[in-house]
């Protein structure tokens, strides 16, 4: 158990260093899912409550577009099945943190998500 405890201290140090040295991975790529699933999963325990600026533009296919700020924008997209009862909805997600910015487009068609980087 002593070694597990040391591993936890090590984990805290590694995450802290990542947040300082590789902020794009933690604060941007994690939310836009521009990394592999395993790497993304390993970054999830890092707490970054409301740090990144995420703006989600939702277009419902009837030429209406609304912008929302979100803590976890992907959460909104993936769980939005109960919110938009339409066949096709498109999203434009902007995640910004300091000088880093990524814009990503998503289309939801027949309960499946399709993505494209701008």
């Amino acid at each position, binding site marked *: *158990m002593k070694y*597990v*405890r040391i591993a*936890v*201290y090590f984990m*805290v140090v590694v*995450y*802290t260093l990542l*947040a*300082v040295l590789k902020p794009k991975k933690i*604060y941007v790529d994690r939310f836009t*899912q521009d990394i592999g*699933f395993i790497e*993304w*999963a390993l970054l*999830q*325990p*890092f*707490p*970054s*409550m*409301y*740090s*990144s*600026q995420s703006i989600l533009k939702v277009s419902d296919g009837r030429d209406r577009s609304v912008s929302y*700020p979100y*803590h*976890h924008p*992907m*959460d909104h*997209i*993936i*769980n*939005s*099945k*109960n919110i938009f009862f339409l066949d096709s909805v498109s999203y434009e997600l902007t995640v*910004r*943190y*300091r000088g880093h910015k990524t814009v990503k487009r998503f289309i*939801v068609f027949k*309960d*499946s*998500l399709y*993505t494209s980087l701008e």
Partner: protein
Amino acid sequence: MEHDNKIDRTLSRLMNDPLSIVSILFLCTVFINIRFIAVPLFQNTFIKNPFFPEYFTALKMGFPYLFLGVLVFIRSKIAYFIGVLISFFLMIHPIIFAKADIVITFYLFLWLFVKGKNHSIFLGRLLISFIFFGAAVGKLTPEWMSGEQLNTIVHLRKIPSVSLVIIGEFLVAISFLLPFYIASLISIFILIGMTMSMHNGTVIMATLPILGMILTFLSIVSLKKSELRLYFHEDEKKSNFVRLFFEIFKINNITLIKFKKDNIGKNAKGILVKKGYIIQGQNEDGEFLYGFDCYAEIISRLAMLAFLFPLFKLKNHKFIST
């Protein structure tokens, strides 16, 4: 009769275990959270996302999440390890997407798993600080400093000043470096402030487990193991309620003694024992305790309430020197 004994034993075990505080508060968190995410958790109603492996998204996490509320009461390393695994799976499942309260659940079970017999209070405090470090450092951006981003958080009752938010989170982030009691007081104050500032308890699922951990640390540090004798007033009408309380919970290290006329008068040190009190305490050194001091000594032996001991001692300003 046996049934009554089982209830008594369970209540007694709860009262004598400082971890009961964090367990009960976490159970409350589970019930509050279920209100918000029950449908997606139990029915897996989400849009298919090719980012997640298919076999993984097929897992329904409703019952595992409820099971965490049970695991937190089982005092076993295996239970805590299962708790770490479930909370990690929840964290990376598309249904949860690393909601703050699930991230905190992960760290709570991680601390329970690694804490060992000495409770590793420092590690627990470090994990709480780490959670707030991520939040505080992440907010040092031009958008946050200008107040632009704070205005977009829809759950706030009233928009606070940006510096208040960042300084508050920063103070909890460095709290593991501060003296224990001062750090606990600051953290509790900030957590309650955070909870009160949001509508409908939006952050309460995140703040309750952390609050539970801090109160547990305080209880572990304040818990006294030396024996305390309690003398009750001979008039049963006056002392029945308090006596019943101690008999139900069977508190460790507290011996219950009915007031006898022999006990009223002078104690071993020749000090007059006061007749007006319903209960009087006598500690290991034979010293008699009355009123507020007596209740403080009782509290320090109730594992679940021992976190209040520093507050009781605040009256005499003794806790600062401990």
